[in-house]
């Protein structure tokens, strides 16, 4: 198993390949949220449990006329809200490239739940690196042109890895689909230089 990685403050990119020589080997690309952030999310979940527990204790132990008792409802609601939100936190996103077969996009949540999406190789027209602009920020994203679909399909639906992390995945996808890479050489040179 050949492995390589790129890291920054926010994410760690890990590339796993069964063998570098064999082009038919399964190629796996992971983008993982760094440990400190995952720990932060875990702490948030504990906070949620604490808020819910505190709310229950306040409600049952304090007298009926106690004004603090009304606080228990806000604690309970905020606790449940944090719990619901924490279930949506993403731990890892992966791209599993199976030559001649297709690619599988996986999203692993902090709760342990994994959502997968398989795209057959014949459906992929072209992988593209796109600069996305929102009302408050700009970021790079890796998208796929799919046959018969108007909208681009995002490879990473939740995470926003850097261009340095996206380029190897884009190259791997191009190699599998047989797309010409020359049109993006300027970006690659920049990444290598950087």
């Amino acid at each position, binding site marked *: 198993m050949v492995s390589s990685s790129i890291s920054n403050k*926010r994410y760690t990119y890990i590339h796993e390949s069964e063998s570098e020589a064999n082009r038919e080997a399964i190629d796996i690309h992971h983008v993982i949220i760094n440990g400190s952030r995952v720990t932060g999310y875990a702490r948030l979940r504990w906070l949620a449990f604490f808020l819910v527990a505190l709310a229950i204790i306040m409600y049952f132990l304090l007298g009926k006329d106690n004004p603090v008792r009304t606080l228990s409802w806000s604690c309970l609601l905020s606790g449940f809200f944090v719990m619901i939100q924490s279930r949506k936190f993403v731990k890892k996103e992966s791209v599993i490239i199976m030559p001649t077969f297709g690619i599988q996009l996986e999203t692993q949540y902090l709760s342990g739940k994994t959502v997968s999406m398989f795209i057959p190789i014949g459906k992929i027209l072209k992988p593209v690196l*796109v*600069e996305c*602009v929102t*009302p408050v*920020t*700009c970021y790079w994203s890796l998208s796929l042109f799919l046959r018969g679909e108007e909208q681009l399909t995002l490879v990473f639906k939740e995470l926003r890895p850097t261009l340095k992390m996206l380029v190897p995945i884009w190259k791997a996808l191009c190699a599998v689909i047989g797309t010409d890479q020359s049109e993006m050489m*300027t970006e690659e*040179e920049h990444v290598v230089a950087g």
Partner: protein
Amino acid sequence: MAEPKLRVLMVSDFFFPNFGGVENHIYYLSQCLLNLGHKVVVMTHAYGNRTGVRYMTGGLKVYYVPWRPFAMQNTFPTVYGTLPIVRTILKRERITVVHGHQAFSTLCHEALMHARTMGYRVVFTDHSLYGFADVGSIHMNKVLQFTLADIDQAICVSHTSKENTVLRSGLSPGKVFMIPNAVDTAMFKPADVRPSSDDVITIVVISRLVYRKGADLLVEVIPEVCRLYPNVRFVVGGDGPKHVRLEEMREKHSLQDRVEMLGAVPHSRVRSVLVTGHIFLNSSLTEAFCIAILEAASCGLLTVSTRVGGVPEVLPDDMVVLAEPDPDDMVRAIEKAISILPSINPEEMHNRMKKLYSWQDVAKRTEIVYDRALKCSNRNLLERLSRFLSCGAWAGKVFCMVMIIDYLLWRLLQFLQPDDDVEEAPDINFCN
């Protein structure tokens, strides 16, 4: 790939696919600056479904930020709402100079404010003339005073415009440069075979049919000219609220066969409309610099125009007949133009325009302004606040508060997302 000399961010609410003088100015100036070896990025708001990053000719990168326009193609003035995206673009593209265009543009004012807060060099170009008396102008002038209080350099498109901007904003005249607009003479060439003026003389009008462009003057001038000269016909291109008045005039005086109404004319078709005529008529009531008369002169048309704003500065005396914005005087000017029409040589006029106005020259002069801006000393927050305090008894204090909050928000953004976390965009070389 060689490192660009300067990295310029052009900011305005007005850019393609919208068409107009400001849009053209930004586009052509950017193209020429790219040719001079600078990196140019344009920031504007989204137009319909045109959002995100687009690349134009020569590798001009355009950020269509998904902020929707709310009035007159302007984004809603949020004051601080644009700070995160402006900061991100400035960092991503490693910008050195921020160049804002048009006093009407809220995006321009906000971007210049944020850029100054972050210590960038800023240049502002004013493309219009404004009054001093009406409520709208008073408000606009105060906003302009706020923006220009902390600017490095300013550019105006005519001497009249420069005078107007200095009076409105209280800016030092030494900081204001006059750089005129230009025309792409390659796009506006005279017809290969000039239409004969012996039997029919065609007068062309291309403008938005609004009050400011003097559409009401046209309603009075056209019937009178048609009465005096049976061999004169008019071609009117453009659309707007005054279109109905012109149609009524045509019906009233039975001029359907002599006044052709084209409706809205796309910019790509302007030249083909111009070359069908002999005289170009501009009836604007206010104009900082009229690009339309440059385009007409480049196509070899003799121009008749109102003597307003910066118009008298645009063309040499033998290429234009000026009149007061009064129907009788305009009719007299058209009479004079018809009499000197036989002496006009379109090819010669086109060649003179080529020498007089070129975007390359505009870009070189703008480059000098950028260099001047870069040489300006960087002032700290307290020095900058003292400038805002001098903007008025109450306004000064309000402006100071606005700037202090902007500074604090910028610091908060730096804490939440340090500069190192903003990913730099690679420079894509389109020349190869």
